[in-house]
């Protein structure tokens, strides 16, 4: 049975710097989390949505609508975009946070971040080049039709090389790869961790106006609507199998 006071699951402290397979985690019991895994199976941040102010509620709830068709990326680019977003956020099954749609909407609306590296193209062109480069590497290195068609392990290897700026040839020659990784990840992380499903996964209390938070610690940090990290094992089974804390 997992003990969240322990730190054995943290990648930096493991020999391969890889986390355990998500199967060690409980299934989400209330609400939705990405891939239905999480640490707070009986916490649904949306249970407090009626306490949010109207402006915040409309912004957050809009993320739960069915995703609209892509506007910025072309049908040719779409499979690569989706495979890239799935790989970097480890979203291998439904339900998925619609990260590709978030990125597409940001770029289509021109909501850029307010700076552009002198040795880099516009962020929109950076995205196009990265997708092109991922296809290029998948083709030349693995003989796949494109990045989306490559095996999941090969896709992860390519992304790892992107994260370490170990790619070259083709479109990569036009990019400072470390900066391109940063441009892409800024948008992807903002898309994933702005979604209430991700807040369920991590146990984040979410918006708190006008209600506010009253339990700051040190004795308790949990509001009435929040839940502690927990597992979904049947406690009876856990005791029978000798997995409990006694």
């Amino acid at each position, binding site marked *: 049975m997992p003990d969240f006071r322990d730190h054995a699951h943290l990648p930096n402290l493991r020999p391969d710097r890889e986390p355990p397979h998500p199967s060690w985690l409980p299934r989400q019991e209330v609400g939705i989390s990405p891939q239905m895994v999480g640490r707070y199976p009986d916490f649904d941040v949306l249970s407090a949505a009626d306490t949010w102010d109207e402006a915040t509620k409309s912004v957050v709830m809009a993320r739960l609508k069915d995703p609209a068709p892509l506007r910025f990326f072309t049908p040719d680019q779409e499979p690569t975009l989706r495979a890239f977003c799935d790989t970097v956020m480890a979203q291998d099954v439904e339900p998925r946070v619609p990260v590709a749609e978030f990125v597409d909407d940001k770029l289509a609306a021109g909501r850029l971040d307010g*700076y552009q*590296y002198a040795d880099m193209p516009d962020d929109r062109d950076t995205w196009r080049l990265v997708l092109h480069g991922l296809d290029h590497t998948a083709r030349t290195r693995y003989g796949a039709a494109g990045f989306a068609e490559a095996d999941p392990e090969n896709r992860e290897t390519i992304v790892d090389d992107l*994260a370490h700026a170990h790619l070259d040839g083709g479109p990569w020659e036009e990019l400072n790869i470390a900066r391109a990784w940063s441009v892409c990840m800024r948008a992807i992380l903002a898309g994933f*961790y702005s979604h209430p499903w991700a807040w369920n996964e*991590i*146990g984040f209390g979410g918006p708190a106006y*006008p209600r506010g938070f009253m339990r700051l610690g040190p004795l308790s940090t949990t509001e009435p609507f929040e839940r502690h990290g927990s597992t979904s094992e049947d406690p009876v089974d856990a005791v029978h199998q000798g997995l409990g804390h006694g």
Partner: protein
Amino acid sequence: MADRLRGLLKGAIGPSDNDSRYLLDVHSRELPGEDTMRQYAPGEEVDLVIVGAGAGGSVLAQRLARHGWNIVILEAGPFWHPDEDWVSDEAGSHELYWTQNRIIGGADPIELGKNNSGRGVGGSMVHYAGYTPRFHPSDFSTLTDDGVGADWPINYEDLRPHYEQVEAELPVAGQNWPWGHPHRYPFSPHPISGAAARLWEGAHKLGIEMRVGPVGIVNGTFGNRPHCIYRGYCLQGCKVNAKASPYVTHLPDALAHAVEIRANCMAARVEVDQATGRATGVVYHDEVGGAEILQRARFVAIAGYSIETPRLLLNSISSRFPHGLCNDEDQVGRYIMVQGASQTTGRFPDELRMYKAPPPEVSSEQFYETDLSRGFARGFSIQTVSPLPIGWAEHVLADGHWGRAMREYMRDYNHWATIGVLNELLPQPENRITIAEPIDPYGIPIARMDYSLCENDKSNIAHSTEVITDILHAADAQDVLTIYRYAHLVGGARMGSSPQASVVDANQRSWAVPNLFVADGSVCPTQGSANPALTIMALASRLAARMASGAAMDDDPLARAGTGTRQAATPQHARSRSS
């Protein structure tokens, strides 16, 4: 007895000559006066036109309006309606930031946008965390005392009364402050979160002194401004009106005293009479594709912050100033500074939920001044912070994690507490704003910012990051993640004692144009390791007092050169340099 009396009165005494706290509405976050503010007729010459409604411009306007000046503020961004415009959400707060394009270069390019650049009425303080420390007396003479940086043409005592006044206006809450020039705060310290307590414990074990605050966040009530509700979204704009920004601390009073704010108005250039060399006003656009409009004024003050102020000057080209306004000596845009802002985050067995309470909680200025045993000049401060999920995901990414490892760390979010530093990075001439080729939607060329660290900067960053990592280990953190980053902006149009080495004089009046002032953080010759908001406001407060009295127009060369350098050269300071 005096201490007991001060304790009783803590939080009870408000500032005079600023009614902003009473003008605010208890039930609405609108800036009162938007609909009823005075509107000056087009073509009417006002006393003062200010570019930028942020920390500097707003304080200057409020003060001089109280002296009867007719003032127009041009603000590039919108007039906020916080009830509708601001949200308790990271990604939904994009519009608070200056996201118009800028080019970043140099060996260590600085990320801008949400990191350090605001846009809209209230400026960057709308989304600053809330830390409001003073500069130390040592900040004003680092060249004389430490052999690095620059000397200011003024000294701490010139700013001290304005620090005290602005602290009463924000109002600042914090413990009695032992560092720099020791002082008290008008409001009691806030309660701290479990996450901050864990960090403080680690620092305590290492013998590092920390104190609660100082933050510009109401603890109690302040006029019609309520107590903080500890929801944690300080960086997304305070929907409570508890956190100080000019939007609630100075602009209500300014609008009640005949100041007009023209929002969504982008300044294009300062107009100069080619015969007299005096500024006649500011040319601006009130919409994309709109015609140029000239707001005439007796005085012009630029308060667009360290990137937009130099950009406006450099784009103000005329036959008299072919290289940009005030730039005959090639000083405009130089010596821009950011602070190193590495953060480390530590893992603890208990759920700490760092998203609760304001991100700024506890800080230390124990390492602020030069200690040559550390191997570099000047120092750093330590401050607890508490990133929300997207911010913390960037932190995890910076430690080298993505995919399943990213998800694993993020699921652990509630167990982590984060602490950061602010390094005093040194002013360097090649760290500068220039004009880039691309144009913005108004047709105005955009800014380019180049930044490169010097060896002293790198040593400072490396050492300070070790110190906060040690704090986490002393607190028994189970795992530690580190991100190297930067924060804040100052410099770019610095004040100094000669036109060859600065843009403005000791009164923040430009050397080249007699009725042109710079009223923002770009005038700072050094930055200490204090967050700049309070100092920017105090400088504007001092500038206003001197403009109102006429002292700022003093043409005496000694008055323009200021007193700071002369006082810094006393034997006492000379001794400390050799020690």
